[in-house]
């Protein structure tokens, strides 16, 4: 009798190890089922719908008043849309090519300024000064009726 039990334990197929495995699996399922909603809850919601590369992206023209700028997500990247005049808009990547801060529009100087290390760019993305090694990627932007369209340059 005892020999038999030992033999079964060696092969790992005895009743105890099966029950232990069952208990382990039930606990894992219970804990996993409780943790799944919590992790999903904590993950940020998808805020990038419809802005994969390639296709035309548009925002309402009312969102950007003349002389001001607005930060949007285009191609899943922070993008700054500057409306210089009624029908003159510019769209550029807002990620500074120096260390990745988000550039700000300075209306007085008519240029984009990075708040981190004072890199300066013009509305075509060219570096005017500061530590930025490369120009900002610029996109095509146009006002069409009540929308501002943004597409690849």
């Amino acid at each position, binding site marked *: 009798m005892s020999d038999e039990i030992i033999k079964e334990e060696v092969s790992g197929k005895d009743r105890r190890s099966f029950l232990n495995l069952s208990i382990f699996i039930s606990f894992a399922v219970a804990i996993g089922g409780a943790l799944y*909603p919590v992790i*999903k809850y*904590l993950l940020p*919601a998808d805020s990038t719908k419809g802005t994969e590369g390639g296709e035309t992206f548009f925002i309402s023209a009312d969102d950007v008043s003349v002389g001001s700028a607005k930060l949007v997500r285009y191609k899943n990247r922070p993008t700054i849309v500057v409306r210089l005049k009624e029908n003159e808009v510019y769209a550029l990547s807002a990620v500074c090519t120096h260390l990745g801060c988000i550039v700000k529009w300075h209306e007085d100087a008519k240029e984009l300024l990075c708040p981190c290390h004072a890199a300066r760019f013009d509305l075509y993305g060219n570096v005017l000064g500061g530590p930025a090694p490369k120009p900002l990627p610029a996109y095509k932007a146009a006002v069409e009726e009540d929308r501002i369209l943004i597409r690849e340059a």
Partner: protein
Amino acid sequence: MNELKLGPILIRNRFLISMYNFVENRLGIREILDLEVFYKLAPSHLGIFSCFGGITFFIFTLQVITGILLLIYYVPTTAQAYDSVIHITNNVSFGWLIRGLHHWGANIMIITVFIHMGKIYFHGIYKNPRELNWVTGIILLVCTLSFSFTGYLLPWTQLSYWATVVGTEIPSAMPVIGEHIKIFLRGGTDVSQVTLTRFFAVHIMVLPAAVVIFIGLHILMIRRQGISGPL
């Protein structure tokens, strides 16, 4: 040693055993575990109504967890409180579940608290030598009701706003000090942002701290005195 027996649990995993031994060698937890956990016998006269203290405690821990999760998206300002609650319910993944658990947990906790208190009262368990435990229980009851009252305001709906107006109006019926209590509760003459902020602070900091302390005392006293005998 390649086997560890903790009450009914047999552990063969060498990593778990060495972890246990590390703690055991330093703190000597074996005695406490055997006495208080693995060989602790529950009296045979216990029935369903003896469980409601534990059920309340379970719901409270659930409220703490879901409360912390809600805190991650909730914004305690009059301008944004309602919108943030709607955002949690409709936009955040499983936000409806977390808010629902917190909402229904709060409601059910009131019921379980009163069943627990009824059992203690009608069985005369509060009598000597358990008076002090009854006192901590009453403090916990007041904390639970205060949780409900302060939490009700936080979504900043019409219902919660007017419930708070009426609720904070009640003490003002008291002579002399009534009006002062009302103004103290509201942080001003009206229910405003100040009221929301102090209710929020009380709901998420003051009451949880108080409840943790008094639940600790509540349970320590039960452990010290043992569960009361049958009727």
